[in-house]
């Protein structure tokens, strides 16, 4: 008897603790709004780092494997270490879009637009964008790009996005961690409170990593009225030369 009362109150407590997200007319959670990563260290190093110079410190955002380290294959680790020495080669420093999951980590806002057909992610950084169809269509064949091709579906109240077709030229962070063309990502967006989305990305890349790994960051809702502003990178005079070179005579 005493045990069953305990059980009932436990269940009641668990139920009241379960967050009920705002919903669209079709019943799926309404993730719309302006959001921003709250684990900024991930922009600098997904494995975490000590604070130094003008970079913040913090713990690894990798939750699997449990040691928080990327499970590199030996040759890939060598490449990542080399990148770390030559961080001027970071593609985002040359105005390129970040790839996935890196687009989610910079300290810039992200607007989510959602209807029954698509979820659209508009990123302030590099005015990047991802259109995520929800119609069950497959990835196109022979498609390669910086941000890959995203297809989404709902699993309960979680938006699950499968991303493939990468060109392999993106980095994971400013520390030089890498992926290649065989990268495959499964992302999970779950609203856990009115102002929080738990974002999870499981990254599989058999030519870079010994096994798949998973990172998790919280996205925080930005104050009402927050607007994304225009991010000009190529338009900047000094970057222009990377793109067109000097005018030819």
């Amino acid at each position, binding site marked *: 008897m005493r045990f069953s009362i305990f059980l009932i109150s436990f269940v009641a407590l668990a139920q009241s603790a379960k967050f009920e997200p705002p919903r669209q007319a079709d019943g799926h959670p309404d993730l*719309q709004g302006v959001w921003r990563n709250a684990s900024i260290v991930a922009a600098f190093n997904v494995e975490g780092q000590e604070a130094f110079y003008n970079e913040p410190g913090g713990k690894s955002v990798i939750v699997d494997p449990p040691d928080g380290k990327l499970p590199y294959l030996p040759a890939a680790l060598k490449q990542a270490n080399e990148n770390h020495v030559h961080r001027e080669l970071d593609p985002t420093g*040359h*105005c*390129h*879009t970040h790839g996935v999951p890196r687009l989610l980590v910079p300290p810039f806002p992200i*607007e989510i*637009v*959602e*209807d029954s057909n*698509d979820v*659209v992610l*508009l990123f302030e950084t590099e*005015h*990047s*964008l991802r*259109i995520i*169809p929800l119609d069950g*269509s*497959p*990835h*196109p*064949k022979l*498609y390669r*790009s*910086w*941000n890959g091709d995203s297809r989404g579906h709902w699993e309960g109240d979680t938006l699950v996005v499968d991303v493939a077709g990468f060109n392999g030229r993106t980095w994971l962070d400013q520390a030089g961690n890498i992926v290649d063309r065989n990268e495959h990502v499964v992302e999970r967006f779950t609203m856990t409170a009115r102002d929080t989305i738990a974002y999870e990305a499981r990254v599989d890349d058999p030519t870079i990593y010994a096994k798949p790994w998973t990172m998790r960051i919280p996205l925080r809702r930005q104050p009402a*009225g927050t*607007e*994304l*502003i*225009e991010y*000009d990178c*190529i*338009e900047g005079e000094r970057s*222009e030369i*990377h*793109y*067109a*070179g*000097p*005018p*030819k005579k």
Partner: protein
Amino acid sequence: MPARRKSRPIFFAVFVSAVCVRAADLRGIWMADKNVDASLERAHVIVDPPDGKIPYKSEAIAKQKQNFENHATADPETRCFQPGVPRAAYVPSPFQIFQNDRAVYMVYQDVHAYRIVYLDRAEHNEGLGYAMGDSRGHWEGDTLVADVTSFSDATWLDAAGDYHSDELHVIERYTRTGPDTMTYEATIEDPKVFSRPWTIRLPLRLQRGVQIVEDECEEGPNARRHHVPLFRRAP
């Protein structure tokens, strides 16, 4: 306070549209006819003034001629700049419209530019110098009217070297005219460059069975700008 006086009718329009008007559904992937971007004058899309010519101020014509002569290298589009407004609507590249209560979202394939046309606030952010401008919208019946300001002078109006200054002000009108068609109208005002406001009007066509794909510029001295073609979806 002229700025304040100017915003009052916009406030009123926002209020009226919020209370009285249900938004039209503009969603879909749209594209203009291919030849418009080459030259607005030659494409015969200028409906005002009636002679179909851009009303340049006399002192502004020389720069247009110079742009035209150097367009192969001087066109900001060839350098992967964001296309600007109104040009984004008729570059030879599709764009997709998304909508919610807060805004209408113009998502362009061209260099993955986008604009957020806010419906829930009337005050512009002034003096930002955006390539794509600062957009505030309201509904007039089934027409989305977007008021766009705060431009930089870094974009052109077409590939023929027609240009504007940072005093550009554009009023766009998007009106769906059929299941597969929309009329796009833009009134262009720029007291530094033009002697009077002028208006273009052109059809946009719904693109079925395609998707917006990534259009990322490649770097290097041999990089050549090209528009990523329409991408057919898997059947």
